[in-house]
């Protein structure tokens, strides 16, 4: 039984030049105790997908325009009223934003911010909430936690702030954490610490994590399964080692080939020429076809190709390239 399963999710944003489908028919699921990575470049819809789960559009003119978001034991989040969804946020599903400084209230002490989360969902005394907050800070390895409870966010370093944000996300013991580029603003040694912290949480309490990142290295380090997104659609998904070690979609292959460290110093890197398509009027057929070195005439006809299995469904490694369909036969 999946903890979260998303079917054909569509999310639209209004823009001056028309309606942009930032998320266009995305499906994936997250199992209990799993770390699921979503990767892609800027504008591919990875953040929009995850914000749509909790409808956290931050005031942007956006809406869910189709699909289902099934959370185990709760039902379809897309069909919930705002007030019901507010109960789900924090309690069942928590969100960690990229920038810990904007996720925290600058005028409020750390302790008060954490206890507020707890007291919003539970009826407990102030003292008990403070004790719980202290324990949460200990759990995320904040040094001298008693002192930090009375600190303001600006008094903490970037890594400590992100730990506090994680502590707040863990406050109600959610079953699922959605982390949107949680380490992108951090230095690499601190990133390593935060990734280990998330993994430790999963190992100890079985919390599922959906991790959004642009860094394939991060996915490789902590995720179990992953999805690669391009122009609002998932183009490849499967177990992390399979996708990264033998990518089957030309976009995933190109993304990996563009990274330094894959070729010798005297060889040139292989960038992906061109730019992603407009999400307001995307081209027909495969959205990567205009930039794809392997593109055939068939690639630019009809609706975007769906995900299909490559070599037996067992591993769950599937991609949306029609050339693979020809090579391996339809699923």
């Amino acid at each position, binding site marked *: 039984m999946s903890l979260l399963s998303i079917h054909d999710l569509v999310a639209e944003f209004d823009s001056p030049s028309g309606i942009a489908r930032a998320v266009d028919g995305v499906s994936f699921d997250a199992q209990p105790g799993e770390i699921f990575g979503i990767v892609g470049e800027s504008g591919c819809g990875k953040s929009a997908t995850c914000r749509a789960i909790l409808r956290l559009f931050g005031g942007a003119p956006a809406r869910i325009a189709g699909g289902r978001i099934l959370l185990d034991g709760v039902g379809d989040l897309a069909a919930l009223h705002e007030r019901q969804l507010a109960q789900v946020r924090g309690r069942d599903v928590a969100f960690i934003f990229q920038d810990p400084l904007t996720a925290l209230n600058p005028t409020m002490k750390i302790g008060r911010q954490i206890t507020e989360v707890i007291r919003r969902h539970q009826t407990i005394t102030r003292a008990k909430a403070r004790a719980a907050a202290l324990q949460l800070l200990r759990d995320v390895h904040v040094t001298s936690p008693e002192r930090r409870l009375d600190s303001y966010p600006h008094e903490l370093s970037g890594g400590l702030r992100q730990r506090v944000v994680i502590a707040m996300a863990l406050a109600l013991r959610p079953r699922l954490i959605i982390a949107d580029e949680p380490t992108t603003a951090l230095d690499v040694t601190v990133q390593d610490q935060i990734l280990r912290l998330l993994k430790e949480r999963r190992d100890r309490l079985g919390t599922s994590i959906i991790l959004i990142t*642009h860094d394939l290295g991060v*996915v490789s*380090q902590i995720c179990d399964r992953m999805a690669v997104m391009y122009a609002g659609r998932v183009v490849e998904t499967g177990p992390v080692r399979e996708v990264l*070690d033998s990518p089957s979609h030309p976009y995933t292959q190109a993304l990996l080939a563009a*990274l330094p460290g894959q070729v010798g110093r005297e060889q040139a890197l292989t*960038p992906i020429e061109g730019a992603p398509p407009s999400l307001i009027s995307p081209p027909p057929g495969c959205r990567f076809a205009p930039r794809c070195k392997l593109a055939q005439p068939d690639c630019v006809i009809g609706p975007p190709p769906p995900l299909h299995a490559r070599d037996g469904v067992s591993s769950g490694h599937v991609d949306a390239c029609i050339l693979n369909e020809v090579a391996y036969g339809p699923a």
Partner: protein
Amino acid sequence: MAQLDFQRVERRFPVKRGLLDMVARRDRVYLHAVRGVDLRVSPGDILGIVGESGCGKSTLARIGVGLQQSDGGQVIFDGRPLAGPDPAGRLQMVFQDPYSSLNPRITIGAQLEEVVAHYFPKLPRAKRAARVSEILAEVSLDPETALKFPHALSGGQRQRVSIARALCPAPEILVADEPVSALDASVQAQIINLLKRLNREKGLTIIFISHDMNVVCYLCDRVAVMYLGEIVELQNSQDLFGDPRHPYTRALIAAVPDVRRAQSLAEPITGEIPDPFAVPRGCRFATRCPLAETACQNPQEMLPLGGAGGVRCWKAVPSD
């Protein structure tokens, strides 16, 4: 070709004092951004400067092109102390954010012609446009790009325009401060290829500031690692990544996630960069270093390694 030579360069910034500090006659507090940096940039080199945020790498870059003055030591350029930006434009800089470093209200062509006109006032107006087309071609942009405004370009194209602008005065040394950090990986590769080509084909010397170890490893010939304002290790790229000596360099390399590995390499180093106002005595990395012991509280000198390199750690393993 002119050489750039940092000699014991220091830079500190005074911290704003409140009225209370003045009444209490507290001493002025300074943030030491760069401490005693010795660094020689050889012509034709791609020198990488890596380190985490706040280590002083950007300040050092700005001092290197004369945008900021050093408080101690000096920068020797072409045999003379550098007192400000080079009037002939032989030292140029490319910034991280290609969105804010271009004027949004002027066409690309006009922006570049302005720079050409400044450095080559004798070039007839009619020939400026041709020169701009040549420079755009050098960074693999169409001549039509000159007619466009910055908003009509992608991030990668904009960064190429920034590089084109830096190339206008035909510089000898290009200082690039995190030029690919704001770009997606597929676009990063274009800019890295471009810098490498400019270096190989035109002999352009490049100082490449970055926090991305993978990019530095691929692009740079020599690498300096900075921590809290000091260079802690300097080696040629292959040696630094193949056999890092300083415990900080080792930790930095080990912490970089790799798409080919499921785990990061070593046990993580604990803690974060200390408060720059309360830096440890002696070795500045000692508070986080797994090898630290009492003797690390003594000031650390740069110990020579082969090939003009060095490491600022008395415990750094000697080469066999």
